[in-house]
């Protein structure tokens, strides 16, 4: 009943949801890029308003590019110069950011500044700067700082940097950290949330408005997170001014070689009718309600020469992502999306999210047959644009709860990918791999870490990736299967609406699902998000024998003898049969599951087991013999660690899957050998 009432109120936007972010910080930045020297010279006017109820004596800043300053930084030590398959140039590829002056009302505040290393105590790390103020900033007071800095772009291997004249400039300016007031993200007391830049951490920032003036050589094409306000040219240089409201991150990119392709997302044309119908049915909203708020969005694709032909693939995926997220989360609130296509030797910049702008990534050869079936282009667009929601518009803390961005994004990507394209990898002859299955295969492995963990505190790089991407995505699919489509998607949408323009925590996410009383939900929260539990259902034993005729003395004292061997064989073919099946559960996740017993006469008996005990015995006497016992026949338990022990076949009927696979395998062998006959 509670769940019913909750569902009834879900479709509308909850009253406490924000329509726009609480503005904490505004940036007015002027920056000049010297491409040959890879130098950025900048000045910013930063207006920060103390959001807490306490006076603040010290401000904290992120100087992210100091991660690339030298081999002693925390980032360098953790990554050892390798990240996501890319390698740092450890000779000339270093970069840095130095604040050269910082004043408040004319007073120099940089004098007492010091670097802090709150996470690991590394005295050589320069990514967090603490700046004491001459006097504390009162609650609600706005501090206007004038900051000058210079920065050198590293050779790109980890998100930001350059290759030749290609520059991807993310987290490139002195950025004030987040002062979390009491109550925000469930904090008991106000305090700074300022972590160092780690190899496996991304970002967290406060909302505000940006105005950025970028000066580059005239030949350079600039893409940015903002809308262009003006452009002036002088002495072979140009200055472009961009502005964007309601964001917490401003990235830009420039390259003289960009080939720009433009398109427009038109909701009336680009939202598939079938998806609108599906969303309307599942979410319990009319089509008009769903389409309300979906606005045209200008799409710009900054392509590398040689990749131009692939922009249509980016475009198709981008439009689909705008439509899907617009329906199942909320309408995209900005006017534009910029997609950066990095060069093939700058793939360290590829696949990275920023607000209103992200980097995709492709290779010329991916447009060749049969490589066209590898949907990397679509995958990266769906993934990175989805980040624009879970990292961008629901600005979660990626340092402390990476799954809230990466995991939910991976989940959304897999739904979008499989629904639109069916397979992430599609090979000839109808063979393909679904995105959800790919994540699931990774998620069911053994774990050393819970999903909720500081991003730098995972046991290893694979553990970080599994627990930030594939595992949380699969747990969300598990919740979806247990809750049912309607309940799950309504709660999912409610989470998105409630926490947009805000900073949710994992508990905020869970709280929107708790009223649904999803069976096994708390076990998943405790066992996966806070633990390393798993589940493996299996058929322990299955027997089905003719019910034994009574032997010994009956009530009248007559001696009953068992049938001799010859008669026993005949009698064994007749019923009734006593069937006993024992189903076990390994692991600590307590999830309900269905058990199906299929008899030789085709009858199927289904039993639902709450999975609380470690095993259950099913016993039945029936006219037909058991042919097959199966736990989880509908595949609801996507977290089942070993699906190969879920079935016990007593009497095989029809074609065996193994025989079919073997036949196909030898046909493959013969095909390949005969392919050799196609060559001289």
């Amino acid at each position, binding site marked *: 009943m509670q769940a019913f009432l909750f569902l009834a109120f879900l479709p509308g936007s909850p009253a406490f949801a924000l329509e726009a972010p609480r503005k904490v910080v505004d940036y007015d930045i002027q920056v000049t890029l010297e491409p040959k020297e890879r130098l950025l010279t900048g000045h910013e006017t930063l207006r920060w308003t103390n959001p807490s109820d306490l006076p603040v004596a010290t401000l904290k800043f992120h100087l992210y590019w100091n991660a690339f300053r030298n081999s002693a930084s925390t980032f360098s030590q953790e990554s050892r110069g390798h990240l996501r398959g890319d390698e740092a140039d450890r000779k000339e590829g270093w970069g840095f950011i130095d604040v050269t002056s910082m004043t408040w009302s004319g007073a120099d505040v940089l004098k007492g500044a010091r670097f802090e290393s709150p996470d690991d105590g590394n005295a050589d790390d320069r990514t967090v700067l603490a700046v004491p103020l001459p006097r504390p900033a009162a609650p609600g007071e706005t501090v206007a700082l004038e900051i000058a800095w210079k920065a050198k772009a590293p050779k790109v291997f980890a998100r930001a940097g350059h290759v*030749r004249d290609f520059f991807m400039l993310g987290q490139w300016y002195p950025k004030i950290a987040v002062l979390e007031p009491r109550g925000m993200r469930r904090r008991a007391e106000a305090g700074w949330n300022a972590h160092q830049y780690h190899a496996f951490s991304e970002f967290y920032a406060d909302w505000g408005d940006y105005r950025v003036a970028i000066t580059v050589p005239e030949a350079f094409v600039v893409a940015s997170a903002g809308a262009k306000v003006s452009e002036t040219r002088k002495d072979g240089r140009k200055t472009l001014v961009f502005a964007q409201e309601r964001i917490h991150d401003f990235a830009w990119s420039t390259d003289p*070689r960009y080939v720009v392709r433009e398109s427009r997302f038109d909701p009336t044309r680009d939202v598939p009718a079938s998806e609108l119908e599906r969303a309307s049915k599942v979410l319990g909203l009319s089509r008009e309600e769903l389409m309300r708020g979906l606005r045209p969005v200008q799409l710009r694709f900054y392509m*590398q*020469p*040689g990749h131009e032909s692939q922009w249509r693939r980016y475009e198709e995926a981008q439009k689909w992502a705008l439509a899907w997220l617009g329906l199942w989360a909320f309408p995209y609130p900005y006017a534009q999306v910029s997609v950066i296509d990095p*060069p*093939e*030797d700058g793939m360290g910049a590829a696949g990275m999210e920023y607000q209103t702008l992200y980097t995709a990534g492709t290779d*010329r050869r991916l447009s060749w047959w049969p490589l066209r079936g590898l949907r990397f282009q679509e995958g990266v667009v769906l993934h990175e644009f989805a980040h624009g929601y879970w990292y961008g518009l629901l600005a979660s803390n990626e340092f402390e709860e990476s799954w809230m961005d990466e995991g939910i994004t991976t989940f959304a990507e897999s739904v979008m990918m499989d629904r639109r394209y069916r*397979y992430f990898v599609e090979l000839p*002859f*109808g*063979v*393909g*791999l*679904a995105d959800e*299955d*790919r994540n699931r*295969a*990774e998620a*069911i*492995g053994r774990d050393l870490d819970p999903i909720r963990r500081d991003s730098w505190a995972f046991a290893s790089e694979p553990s970080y990736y599994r627990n930030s991407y594939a595992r949380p995505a699969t747990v969300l699919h598990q919740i979806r299967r247990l809750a049912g489509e309607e309940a799950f998607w309504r709660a999912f949408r409610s989470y998105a609406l409630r926490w947009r323009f805000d900073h949710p925590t994992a508990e905020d996410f869970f709280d929107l699902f708790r009223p649904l009383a999803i069976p096994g939900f708390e076990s998943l929260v405790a066992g996966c998000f806070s633990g390393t539990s798993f589940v493996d259902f299996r058929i322990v034993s299955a027997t089905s024998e003719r019910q034994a005729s009574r032997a010994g003395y009956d009530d009248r004292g007559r001696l009953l003898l068992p049938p001799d061997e010859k008669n026993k064989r005949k009698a064994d073919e007749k019923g009734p049969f006593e069937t006993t099946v024992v189903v076990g559960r390994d692991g600590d996740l307590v999830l309900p599951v269905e058990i199906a017993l299929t008899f030789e006469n085709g009858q199927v008996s289904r039993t639902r087991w709450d999975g609380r005990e470690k095993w259950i015995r099913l016993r039945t006497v029936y006219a037909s013999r058991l042919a097959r016992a*199966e736990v*989880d*026949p509908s595949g609801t338990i996507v977290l089942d*660690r*070993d*699906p*190969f*022990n*879920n*079935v*016990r*076949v007593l009497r*095989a009927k*029809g*074609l*065996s*899957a*193994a*025989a*079919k*696979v*073997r*036949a196909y*395998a*030898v*046909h*493959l*062998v*013969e*095909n390949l*050998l*005969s*392919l*050799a*006959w*196609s*060559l*001289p």
Partner: protein
Amino acid sequence: MSDALRAGLRAMAGQRRLAGVLWLSLVLPAGVAFTALAPLTRLLDSSPSGASLVKGWDSWALLSWHATRTAQWKGTLAVVLLALLGGWLLQLFLTGGVLRVLIAGDRRPVLGRVVAGSVALFKVNLWATGRYLLSLAFWLGGVCGGVAWLLGKVAGASAVPESPWIQARDLWLLSAGPLGFFMVSLRFDLARIALARGEAATARIAYRLSGPRIRGHRTPLLGIALLWSGVALALGWAFTTIGVSMNPGSVGALLALVLFRQAGFAVQAAARVGFWASLLRFDEGRRAHLASRTIRLSDEETAAPLHDRGDGEGPGHATSGPP
């Protein structure tokens, strides 16, 4: 070239027993693999994906197999790879016998004569294969790869992917790679023909003989090879596509699929026989041409004083056919 193609098509239609022998060379490793895979794939029947696999493709079946039953997965891969290797070696071994039968005409028992011929040519063919692999390594690794490496060096480490040097490198790899492979393989084929004809006692001599036969006639030779490659690929594609669409759901349907696929492989084997017959006809033409040139040269030389002929062996002797 058209003469060679006609000969090939005639052999494709007429040399059915020979095609059958080639088809057996596929069936043998496939049969061994089918048996070896039984214990490795049995687990699929006890997985929830079993039923969906009977219906068609199931991506989760493959991924979960790979993720949770690594030993069986690796075992299956090993069986497939070993079957491929065994099949390839068998084809290599049988080629000598197939050529001998083609040269001699269809006399029974074909299988016995193919095996006997293959055994007789085993050692020299092995040497020829060694020489072939070396040539392949030289042309593909040394010439093709080396030039590509040089072009990359000239372009420099900071070259943009669409720079002319990088484009030239890609173009070079795409054109010179397959072309080099085809020409090196065709020379190997002609050397094996020379061995099968008994023109050469060693792989070295066979290779020496095949050189002049290709020289000046690369285009028609390549044409023959490409045409038969096209035929074989088209046949393979057609039978595979139809086979996949059959998607059997019962034991009977699976048997029908197996029969259909084997029929397809038999047709592909016939196409292979056609290729060899075309190549033999090309070789015969070139031999005749080179022999007539030798005779002409010999005639001219007879008019010359005897002491000018050195040891008495004219230049044509080295390339003339067997007695």
